[in-house]
């Protein structure tokens, strides 16, 4: 367990999440992809903290990331609900009127 290995795992999680964000059609699934990216970020931040700078401010960063994850998720549910109610759509492809 070194910094490099931790970061490698984090990178893998981030990339898997990115794949999901790019490839999923359903809004909620895209959100899951984003969550997974944040998951990788948490791991990376924890790794950095432990191996490079075990400073209390690094812990605050982790809390901020978790907060961001939570509030983004909450907003995501709200937006998805709203989209579903107004447009009867739950996929990003079904909401592509605005273009050009």
């Amino acid at each position, binding site marked *: 367990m070194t910094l490099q290995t931790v970061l490698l795992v984090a990178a893998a999680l981030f990339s898997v999440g990115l794949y999901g964000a790019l490839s999923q059609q359903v809004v909620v699934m895209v959100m899951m992809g984003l969550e997974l990216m944040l998951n990788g970020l948490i791991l990376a931040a924890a790794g*950095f903290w432990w191996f490079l700078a075990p400073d209390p401010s690094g812990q605050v960063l982790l809390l901020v990331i978790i907060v961001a994850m939570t509030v*983004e998720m909450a907003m995501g549910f709200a937006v998805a609900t709203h989209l579903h109610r107004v447009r009867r759509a739950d996929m*990003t492809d079904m909401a592509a009127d605005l273009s050009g």
Partner: protein
Amino acid sequence: MGMRPLLLLPEMLLFVGGLGALIGGSFVPRQRQWLIRVLTVVVLVAAMAAAAVQLAGPAQRAFEGTYAVDTTTGVARILVAFGTLLVLALAADEIAASARESETYALLLFATTGTVVLAGADDLLVLAVGFLLASIPLYGLIGLVNTANGAEAAMKTYLMGALFGILLLLGVTILSGVTGTTTYGDLTDRLTQAPAVAVAAATVGIVAGLMFKAGGVPAHFWVPDAAQGAGGTVATFLTTVPKIGALIAVYRFVLVLPHTTSWALLVAIFAVASMTLGNLAAYWQTDPRRLLGWSTVSQVGFLLVPVVAAGRSDLALPSLLVYLAGYMVTNIAAFAVTAALPEHRELTAYGGLARRRPWLAAALLVALLGLVGTPPTAVFVGKLTTATAAWDGDYAWLAVVVFVNTVLSLFYYLRWIVPAYRHADAGMVATEQVSPLRWSARTAVVAAALSLAAGLAAGPLWQLASQQ
């Protein structure tokens, strides 16, 4: 160093005002929500007054050096609050007595708070949470109009915001990891020893993240959609006010970076891409709001130019602030015209406007020519000084690109002005009955006049922006 929470009085006022609007709104009947509007106005004016008082004092830092209370923050506070004030006037027409009126004000005040926090952030973590605070209310605001386009715009804005929020956090994580600190003061010292590749990656992440708030390349995709899909009030707000905080945040951030990172080139590329893409894409639009949306993308490009010169030219910061001020009033004037004529969703509908509504047409003329950068509007002074700053900072080519893009932009603005000033002809009779909304029309005229006045009185403005 200390807490000195009183230095954040304007921010507190804004946030508490938002809470007050929210709670107060629960108790007023639908027709009397204008009370909340008055409350919001009072809050904004109070915040501006508090900011003005602090502006007179020396530069300080609050909360253990994580928040800068200096001229820049002061100017940003006033600009942001004033911009929101102008936006409220549009709201007086559009959403008065609608069911969500007080919530709208609350969200506007929250977003305003977030924007100010962004502008004053002197710490990566404050920057990150400021980003969240400035973004999240916007998703709600965009979705407020219960239309299909509004919902789509909210969804796209949200997803773009989430992705770029992650990029921002990634950058923050890396920087904090390699330095063990998040405050700018410490970062400036420690980043010189940090591995350059990591710093480069983090720089891209943070700048790109802030580009979402500013609405520039590569995170510009939501801007035209939101400008078109959202209501007039919200469209005006989100294309104007958050940019102020975001650009100042970018400015503060790049000053931290060591010279081993060629951040200036990165910002320059984003600037050129934004202005060029925004201008070209605006070219074919027929919806005035969408056209303005693209135009704001290009304006972000122009606004990034002084950031390129940050640290290399004394002109960089004052020119950025002056340009922001000019851009704010001018852009609000243009949006206010569209808000005053909500039925006119095609450029052609503006035909013969000069004859029917000379004042509104004059406001449109001043606003659009101002956005082009025609003297003596404030944007001209901004464009001039930013280009000068870029040249002064050894980015002469960027200055040339600025002016080439200015010519490009002239095309589509003229496409809007020309029909407005054309003589009346057949086919315009139908739209003649539409009378502009009063508050929006007044706002348009006032903002246009301010744009002119700010250009003429650029000296005092400049002095204000450049005081240390």
